[in-house]
């Protein structure tokens, strides 16, 4: 018997490359003169891109590492299909978040000014967190899993608070830190209970151990299972463990919020999937109902809170995205809850596939939304939803992209990717006869549409100097035709009637005359194009979302039986 483990470095490459780049960036930062620190961003982005490339040789999903010397099928690290898909999401998400940060950090003069982000530290923390997130889905024992989760989260606290001279940041980070630490502590307690019951830390070993556990330990195991879920539910921001989300997102720089909403959430979700469907596979009757209730609460609470966001308040964009990401976490949990009721491994794999497919769609579309929001915020600076007014007049393509992203999030055509992801989610609930959950999920689609569509409609409204200038603008277009009516009182009906009327009908010149006066604001000035990295981020996410819409099989193929575990 050999005591030397063989380490499969190719399997380990994705998290390793990111971690090495993180250290490299930190060290380079020490030696680079101030003027050349902008290259740090390039190194970080290149590292993430390289890590994405290292996923290519893993696409077959059959590599493992850190296996027990005497039992080669029990491993701590497994680059199976699940791990590779989640790594694709988190590394891609981190890369997009890095791209969104690049313009600001390139422009930034020094690291010490108020409002500045210390560049070396920022990139190091981002990469460190991403390496944890990339490790997490491949971890196959609880120790590695918790370690990876903490590696993902700890740098995120610092990222939230990193901006110099910012009041909101530290407070948000503290809130995030305290709640997160409590959640982790509870999870560790749960793990210790589970260990007591099963005698193993390997996920596969736990499943076997729990099946053969002493019935006297039943209560302990059940408590352990539920407590273990808490920490992961916290990371996915499931209600009632979501209170850190709005404050943290609002306090964090926008790209960090994007990172948290996609990378951190996906990592937490991956942990939840691993724990429930692999380790506690036999205990679906315990965690299935728990997750079903969490899912219903999360969707509803997130959507209702998002609905109440006032569009003209400062940072309302981020607030809305924060709450909508809470709601989306609810959809992610629906198939997972259904997996708890699954009758066989194939049905469970299909349900998990629906969760992962939804996560793919959500990651692409949400990052795209954040990318456009970052572009708009660069111009307006206050992160208000109303800043998006007239975006279509300034940047038609950007506005169309954002409209598409929002409808994907809402799950309505033309956002077909979102529609199919939602169909897959609801299908899994119907399949396992979770009628109430299916109805709640369906009704939530309607609630969510209100705020997504409200935002999408803003894009195509003409830009207005003030929030209430819509009516005067409409009346002024009536212009000449209304001149004779202005002696008469009723401006409202007369005005709108006049504006519909095309004057002398049938003249070829008429339509031009109508529109020439129309988008006066548009003529006044087209908006600046998005900065190059942001433009790349928008283009990539838009193309991916389009591809997922035309060929939903790309993501829904994951729901085929036997893909996972």
């Amino acid at each position, binding site marked *: 018997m050999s005591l030397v483990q063989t380490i499969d470095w190719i399997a380990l490459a994705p998290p390793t490359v990111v971690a090495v780049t993180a250290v490299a960036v930190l060290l380079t930062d020490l030696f680079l003169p101030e003027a050349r620190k902008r290259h740090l961003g390039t190194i970080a982005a290149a590292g993430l891109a390289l890590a994405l490339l290292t996923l290519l040789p893993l696409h077959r999903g059959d590599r493992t590492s850190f296996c027990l010397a005497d039992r080669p099928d029990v491993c701590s690290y497994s680059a199976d299909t699940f791990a590779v898909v989640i790594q694709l999401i988190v590394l891609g998400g981190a890369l997009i978040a890095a791209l969104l940060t690049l313009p600001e950090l390139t422009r930034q003069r020094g690291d010490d000014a108020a409002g500045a982000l210390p560049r070396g530290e920022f990139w190091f923390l981002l990469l460190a967190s991403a390496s944890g997130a990339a490790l997490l889905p491949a971890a196959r024992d609880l120790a590695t899993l918790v370690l990876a989760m903490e590696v993902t989260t700890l740098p995120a606290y610092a990222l939230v608070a990193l901006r110099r001279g910012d009041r909101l940041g530290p407070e948000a980070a503290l809130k995030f830190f305290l709640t997160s630490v409590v959640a982790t502590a509870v999870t560790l307690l749960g793990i210790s209970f589970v260990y007591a019951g099963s005698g193993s830390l390997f996920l596969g070993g736990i499943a076997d151990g729990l099946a053969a556990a002493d019935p006297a330990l039943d209560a302990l195991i059940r408590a352990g299972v539920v407590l273990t879920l808490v920490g992961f539910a916290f990371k996915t921001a499931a209600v009632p463990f979501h209170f850190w989300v709005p404050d943290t997102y609002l306090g964090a720089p926008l790209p960090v919020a994007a990172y948290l909403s996609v990378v951190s959430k996906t990592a937490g979700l991956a942990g939840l999937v691993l724990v429930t469907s692999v380790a506690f596979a036999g205990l679906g009757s315990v965690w299935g109902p728990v997750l079903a209730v969490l899912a219903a609460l999360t969707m509803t609470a997130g959507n209702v809170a998002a609905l109440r966001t006032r569009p003209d308040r400062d940072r309302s964009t981020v607030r809305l995205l924060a709450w909508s990401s809470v709601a989306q976490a609810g959809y992610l949990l629906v198939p997972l809850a259904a997996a708890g009721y699954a009758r066989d491994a194939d049905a469970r794999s299909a349900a998990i596939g629906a969760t992962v497919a939804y996560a793919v769609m959500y990651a692409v579309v949400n990052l795209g939304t954040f990318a456009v929001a970052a572009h708009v915020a660069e111009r307006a600076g206050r992160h208000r939803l109303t800043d998006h007014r007239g975006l279509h007049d300034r940047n*038609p*393509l950007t506005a*169309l992209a954002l409209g598409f992203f929002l409808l994907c999030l809402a799950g*309505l*055509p*033309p956002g*077909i990717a979102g529609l*199919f992801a939602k*169909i*897959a989610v*609801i*299908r899994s609930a*119907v399949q396992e006869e979770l009628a109430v959950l*299916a*109805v709640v999920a*369906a*009704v939530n689609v*309607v609630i969510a*549409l*209100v705020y997504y*569509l409200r935002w999408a*409609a803003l894009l*195509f*409204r*003409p830009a207005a100097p003030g929030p209430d200038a*819509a009516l005067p603008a*409409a009346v002024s*277009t009536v212009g000449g*035709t*209304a001149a*004779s*009516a202005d*002696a*008469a*009182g*009723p401006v409202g*009906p*007369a005005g*709108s*009637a*006049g504006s*519909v*009327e095309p*004057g002398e*009908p*049938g003249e070829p010149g*008429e*339509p*031009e005359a109508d*529109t*020439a006066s*129309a*988008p*006066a604001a*548009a003529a006044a000035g087209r908006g600046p194009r998005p900065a190059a990295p942001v433009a790349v981020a928008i283009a990539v996410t838009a193309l991916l979302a389009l591809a997922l819409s035309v060929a*939903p*099989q790309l993501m*829904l*193929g994951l*729901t085929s039986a036997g893909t996972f575990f």
Partner: protein
Amino acid sequence: MLPLNDSVTAPLLAATVALPLLAAVVVLLLPRGPGSTRTAGRIGTAVTGAALAGTLLLAAAFDRDAAGAPQAVTDVAWVPALGIRLHLGVDGISLPLLVLTALLCFLCAVHVLRRPPAGEGGAGPRGLVALLLVLETGTLATFAALDLILFFLAFETVLIPMYFVISRWGGAERATAAWKFVLYTLLGSVVMLLGFLLVGLQAGTFDMVVLAEAHGDGLSRTTQILAVLAIGIGLAVKTPMWPLHSWLPDAHTAAPTVGSVLLAGVLLKLGTYGLVRIVLPVAPEGIRFFAPYLAAFAVTGIIYGSLACLALVRSGAGGDLKRLIAYSSVGHMGFVLLGIATLTPTGVNGALFANIAHGVITALLFLVAGAVKERTGTTDLDRLAAHGGGARLYGRTPRLGALLAFTAVASLGLPGLAGFWGELLAMLGAFNPAEGLNRPVFVVCLAIAGLGTLLTAAYLLQVVRRVCAGSPPTPGAGAGRPDVPTGAHGATPAAPGDADGTGADTGDAGGTATGTATATGTATATGTATATGTVDAAGAAAVRAQRTVTATATAAPPAEAARQPELPDLHRDESALFLPLAALTLLIGLWPALLLRLTDPAVQLLLEGVGR
């Protein structure tokens, strides 16, 4: 019949469905600049024209001897993981609806090209064209889809474009109306999705042809009842069935003319089509359970719609012509639902016939209402009927007036016109419903529906009288004055300025002799409480009016006609838009076999399961 086989017609159908969507993308991405609006309009007209040609070609190539089975079938795997296929085809039920959709979309595109509505903040018609094209793809795909999930996708596709059409190009209250429309229908359709998933997962396929051939085998009775309830709610909201109709009047009132035309002519058909195409064959036991309830709701809708219209048409009720047509749609769709509820070939054929007839007639009604609004600046019935200031289409625009009268008469179901056969067959079906249904219930429904036809005739004739002929002078009132009290009864709160408002609106629309009616009104009304405040304001107008009119004109109608601004009668482009629909009304009214021969074989097949 053209000798084309499936290898030609299948790509033709797919192209007809997809082409408008591609064109919509092109229109959206057109570089902005002078003339791009016009280009967009032309692209829209050309593409919808091409789609119309495509559907007509399909109709010409359609094998009438095999109208029951889908033809021109495309069947490609799309999302194998969920078993979703791109499965398209036409049969005798969907073919007429495809042609109707393409025709109405083409007419709407021409309408937008010739008289583009100004949107909110001066939004040009470019976006409107793109939205119309998306709408066309959505509706064509719904009628051609033979896969449940594809049907759902297409069904949902129309939501967002219609929301934007109403909220950006609509009239007063458009924001509320647009939200009401989109939320109601979405709520219905997500419930419908649950029903589809239930059926698909239980039966193991989403293929509508396979499901229809199974006639509910493999679905338990409970499943069928649940599925019909869920799917039915979604479709009933769209139809709309009383009491789920309340989004419709608001949406129609606020929508621009093309929006109303498509909403009434095409979108409402999605609901009834879904009932016939999916619910009847897929869950026969379920629909048999619900048929009496459906019939009861249907006749309630008929009566409710007619009563609402009668209330709106009353003098002084402040009713809106477009709102009235919307409520009349609730009544007409009630007949369609009644026909479906009988579960007999007669009734379902009648329902499908009434469906098409309603699409043609109501689209024409909305087009005419749009033309009236263009001329008079209002669709308020009181203003249109106001003595002196009213529309009086017979006198002022005889051809438009005649067309409105013709359409209204067609709508009330005059034999020989399209509106007659569908309602007759639906009621005939109710007289002798399918075996196993409670006949007395249906006979009672039949009697109530018969009463509904009377009420329908009552309000439509009232509309014709008030809008086309105008109100008679109120006895005892001064010459030229009765319009003032009528106007003051109206819903407009600005009582003192009301007489002015009416006059100014009319003057505006005519484009000539601005303010004449105003001046007359105020000049003769000195001393009355309503008018004193406006004398000064109208002074200038009065001076102008002196040139054309003697201020103390007598009340004789001919003299009044001379006093009012000229209203242009039907323009040539309007006639070109309206006459095809009028001709179609006449054609299928006189030759109902044209449609019934198409639908009947398909209906017989679909109902096989119900008859068992």
